[in-house]
Structure formats: structure tokens, C-alpha cells
């Protein structure tokens, strides 16, 4: 049975030789040294050239408060494919920007921005900022009549750019109704706003007053039909075909109750709400009453409410859009409203028609009109990860050598104290 001292001496000897072997091994097979380069989203573009020159063993990490621009993202993606470990962390706002043409004679662009609640969104072009909004819910929508070159959207600190979409060639609007002030002023408002308007106004049995060339009712000729009242039924199944092709249909007043168009409507037509208007009251849209949209269909959306009733509701039917507008005497707003009501009436009706107007499929814009940078970030670099920890490679050889010497000294001293050489 060996004594405890002899076991200690053996252990010291084995430990010293093991450490010596490890030192020899690490000198032959050197462990890779791991370095990490970090940069914030603002520094990234400036750092990318130097990062490109670093060895692929260097890990690259971006700390992002805003999604990188397409150029930076493409560069990082290229570095990743070249063997660099590229990671990112942070919480850039998950914003999506879509630009689409406004289907109206004046053209323009509608910019829809999906962004987190409480974000601040500004929209502009190369000439400067045009509009801004504070996001309360899911996002914001901007209609820009005139823009220069590409559109620039900022969501908090995140800058996104999309191309201006191609303009939509205008088509005519067919206004159908009984001869009356509402039909006349709706057609007049649209004409004054630049729409080409074709009218069919019923005056007497089998007598229509028609203005403008009367082509076939299809999307090659018309962008939308505005039905002022139930005389739209005279158009028969042509209206349904038109909507299914992608045409827009505005059912004003009680026209949604007409048999041929009621299957297309967003809901049923309720009893007219009549409001008490004093002789000196300023007349506005709907202030003299309206036909509420009742029994709103499951696939329809209520867009405007007055008190507890739905005044405007919309629905998609195949490729077309149908808007049911309960107001039936908007002409009173134009004629007898407050100062500026004529222009407001004109703009309102133009927006109503524009919201449903047929938009033809156009050749794709060469530049993208859609931007989702956070989704692209995930697609190129994967989900966020913590920054890798840097490592310096081999241990300083003086430390194991000192341990070896200490072990050998202990072993030698023990042997000498036992009287051995």
C-alpha cells in the first residue's frame, strides 16, 4: 500500500507531464482566435468597407434601432455568404410601405404605411417632407396629389424609400338616375374635378336625357358607375358583369334597394333618417338625413357611422368594389352649405368614386413600390441573436509553465524530505 505522500508525488509528476503535453499540443495546433466587430445602424455603412477586408473569422454584429437600407442589407448578406458570421440584435420598427396610384383624373399616389402603434410617420419625396401622422392603431394612409421622384417614408428613425407608381389612365364614370338635383350635381362635381362623365337621366317614360358618348358598360370604357336611385335597375345584369370585371359601383341613397343591384350591395336600405334642420342651420353632408345601411353583410365593412346607424359601407364583389352611400341629397351641402362647401362636395364625390374605380393591371414598375425592410432583414440575416462573445485564442504559456515548475518543485521537495535523491 503506497503512502499518501507517494501518491501526491505521482500526481504532481503526472500533472506536470500532462501540462507539458498540452503546451506542446497547443503550440502545434493553435486554437483560432475569435474577434467580434460591432456597429450601430448609423455606423454600418461607414464600417462595411473595413469589415469586408477583415478575415472571415471575425464575427460581425449590428445593433439596429432601424432596419438597414437595401444597400447595407445586401452588403451584409454578401459578407455572410462569404463566410463571415453576421448577426444582428435590436428592435427596428416592423413597418411596411406600399405606394399605389390614385385612380382619379388628377392622378396622385396613395401611400399606405403599416407601423407599430405610437410610431411617428413622415412622408415626403426628394424635395422634402409632405405630411406626417402619429400611428394610433395599425398604420396610416396618405394621399399625395403631387410628388417628385421616389417617395421617402420615415417610421421613427427608420428611413424607407419606394418608387412612385405609374399613373392610371383615366376612364369615364357613368352617372345614372332620375332627372333631379342630386344626379345633376353629382355629375357636375365629378366633371369639375376632371372626370369624364357620361350621364343617363330618366325624365319621362322611355325618355332619358343622355350626355356624352354612350359606349358599352364594361371596364374598357368605364371606371365606375354611380347609381343615384333605383333607375339603375334599367341597366339590368350589365352592372353585375361590370363589377365582376373589376369595375366600381357606388350605390347612393336608396338605389341599393333596386332588385338588380341589391345582391351587390353592402347591406339593405333602411328607413330614411330625417333630421330636424332649423331654417338657419348650416347644411352639411348628411345633415338633412340619409338612408342607413342595415343588415350589413359579413364580407362588408362599415366605413362611416352617424349616431348608431351605418352611413357608408363597402364590399368587394369578385374583382370589383361596391360602396353603399346612404346620403341622397348631397346637393344641398354644395348649394346651401358653408363657405367652401362647393369644393368640399366636389372633392368628396371624387374621393368616393376614386375609392372604387377600376384600376387596370399596368406593366410592373421597374422600381419597387413596396418596402418591408424588417421582413427583408429576417430573410437575409435571420432572427435577432445576442452578439457573440469575443475570445482571444491560446492561453499565455507562462501560466502552465509556472504550474509545471510548481508541481515538479513539490514532487522534488517531498522526495528529498523522504531521504531520496
Amino acid at each position, binding site marked *: 500500500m503506497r503512502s499518501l505522500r507517494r501518491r501526491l508525488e505521482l500526481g504532481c509528476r503526472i500533472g506536470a507531464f500532462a501540462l507539458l503535453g498540452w503546451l506542446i499540443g497547443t503550440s502545434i495546433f493553435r486554437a483560432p482566435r475569435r474577434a467580434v466587430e460591432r456597429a450601430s445602424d448609423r455606423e454600418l455603412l461607414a464600417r462595411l468597407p473595413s469589415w469586408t477586408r477583415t478575415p472571415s473569422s471575425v464575427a460581425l454584429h449590428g445593433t439596429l434601432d432601424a432596419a438597414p437600407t437595401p444597400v447595407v442589407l445586401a452588403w451584409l448578406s454578401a459578407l455572410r455568404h462569404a463566410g463571415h458570421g453576421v448577426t444582428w440584435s435590436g428592435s427596428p420598427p416592423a413597418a411596411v410601405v406600399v405606394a399605389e396610384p390614385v385612380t382619379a383624373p388628377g392622378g396622385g399616389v396613395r401611400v399606405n404605411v403599416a407601423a407599430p402603434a405610437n410610431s411617428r410617420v413622415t412622408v415626403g419625396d426628394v424635395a422634402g417632407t409632405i405630411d406626417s401622422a402619429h400611428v394610433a392603431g395599425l398604420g396610416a394612409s396618405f394621399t399625395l396629389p403631387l410628388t417628385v421622384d421616389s417617395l421617402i417614408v420615415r417610421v421613427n428613425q427608420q428611413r424607407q424609400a419606394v418608387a412612385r407608381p405609374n399613373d392610371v389612365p383615366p376612364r369615364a364614370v357613368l352617372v345614372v*338616375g*332620375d*332627372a*333631379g*338635383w*342630386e*344626379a*345633376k*350635381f353629382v355629375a*357636375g362635381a365629378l*366633371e*369639375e374635378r376632371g372626370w369624364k362623365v357620361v*350621364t343617363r*337621366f*330618366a*325624365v*319621362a*317614360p322611355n*325618355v332619358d*336625357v343622355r*350626355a356624352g358618348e354612350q359606349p358599352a358598360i364594361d371596364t374598357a370604357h368605364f371606371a365606375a358607375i354611380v347609381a*343615384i*336611385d333605383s333607375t339603375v335597375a334599367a341597366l339590368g345584369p350589365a352592372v353585375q358583369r361590370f363589377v365582376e370585371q373589376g369595375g366600381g359601383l357606388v350605390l347612393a*341613397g*336608396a338605389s341599393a334597394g333596386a332588385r338588380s343591384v341589391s345582391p351587390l350591395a353592402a347591406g339593405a336600405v333602411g328607413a330614411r333618417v330625417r333630421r330636424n334642420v332649423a*331654417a338657419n342651420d348650416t*347644411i352639411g353632408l348628411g345633415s338633412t338625413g340619409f338612408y342607413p345601411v342595415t343588415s350589413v353583410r359579413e364580407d362588408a365593412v362599415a366605413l362611416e357611422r352617424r349616431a348608431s346607424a351605418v352611413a357608408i359601407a363597402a364590399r368587394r364583389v369578385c374583382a370589383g368594389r361596391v360602396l353603399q352611400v346612404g346620403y*341622397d*341629397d348631397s*346637393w*344641398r351641402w*354644395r*348649394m*346651401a352649405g358653408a363657405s367652401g*362647401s*362647393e369644393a368640399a362636395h366636389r372633392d368628396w364625390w371624387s374621393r368616393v368614386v376614386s375609392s372604387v374605380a377600376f384600376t387596370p393591371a399596368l406593366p410592373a414598375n421597374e422600381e419597387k413600390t413596396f418596402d418591408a425592410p424588417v421582413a427583408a432583414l429576417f430573410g437575409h440575416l435571420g432572427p435577432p441573436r445576442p452578439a457573440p462573445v469575443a475570445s482571444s485564442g491560446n492561453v499565455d504559456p507562462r501560466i502552465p509553465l509556472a504550474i509545471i515548475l510548481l508541481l515538479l518543485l513539490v514532487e522534488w521537495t517531498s522526495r528529498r524530505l523522504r531521504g531520496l535523491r
Partner: protein
Amino acid sequence: MTTEFVFATAQYDSGDWDSAPLLPANIIDTIARYTEINVAPTGVIAPLSDARMLRYPFLYLTGHLPVRFSDAERRNVRRFVERGGLLFIDDHNHDIDGVFHKTATEEIARTVAPLTELPNDHALYSSFFKFDGPPTTSHELNGWGDNLVHKHLLAVQRRGRIAVLFSSKDYSSEWNYHPDSKRFLSVDNTRFAVNLVVYALTA
């Protein structure tokens, strides 16, 4: 059911605006007789000095005496025209040297724009019945007034539509009778009123 067409007679401070009291009922009868236009059974009087005159986009104005609008009347008439209303003025004197003609045309020039001749192939003359121009009246043919048969109506057009229509033909005398008396006429002489109203409602 569309909003009713209400025949409105313009009331102004300076003259005898109510010189043809039977005309509104006669025109309303004519509209109801020939068309399906939803017409109110009675007319209204719309004071030009009151902004509520804007609730009636078709206004009929007549008289024998000088026409001088007050500031309020002038402001309202200007707004009425800008917003798309049609003001039909008929000279009850049938006399181009008469005070009504002179003062009314001056007032319209001052308030809206100068009146110009309306071509006889204008859409007004074919909006319902077909006419080769403004139909003559018995007063013109009798040589009453200025002893002229006026070949044209005058108008101020705005955005391609008639905003102010001025007649020297004295339709106010021609149409100022009880509707029941139409049965004695071989040709209804109020048919042009249908064109006027249909044009106002559709153009």
C-alpha cells in the same frame, strides 16, 4: 324617391317680382304633365337677400320695374351661380328699351358677367322638346312692347352650362294663366318651360 324639384320665384327688393303670380302653378302643371320629374305641387318664394335662396338651384325672376340688387342680394346671386344654380330672368315688359331690360342686364353684368346671345342650336332647345330657337310669344307677334321678335335668348355660361338665362320674350305674360285654360290651346305654349327645367336638372 329623389328630392323634389321646387319651382322658386325670386323675390328682390327693388321691383315687382310677383308680376306673374299664376306662372309657377302653370309650369308645375306642365312639368307634371309631360315628365316623371318629382315636382313639388306648389312653388315657393325665395328672397334673394336670404341665403336660404341657395336651397333652390332653379330660380325664376321677372318684373316690369328697375332691378337693383342690394349687397346681400348681389352676394347671394353670385354664390348661387358659382355653386351651379340656374337663374332664369324674363322681361315682363317685352321691351329692350324698357327699364327692366336695361337695369336687369346691367345688374347681371355687375353681379355675374355680361350676357351674350345663346345660339339657337344650344342643348337647351333640345333637352326635351325640339325647338329651333326660343319659341315666340303672342305678345311679340302682336307688336306689343318693342315690336320685335327676339331671335335669341341671352345667357351667362359657366363651365359650359347656362348659369343665367335672360329672355326678352315675355314668357311671364305668355305663361301667366291658370293651368286649366291649357285645354283651349291647340299647342301647349308652356312646353319650352319643360326644356328649361329639364336642362336645369340634367346639364
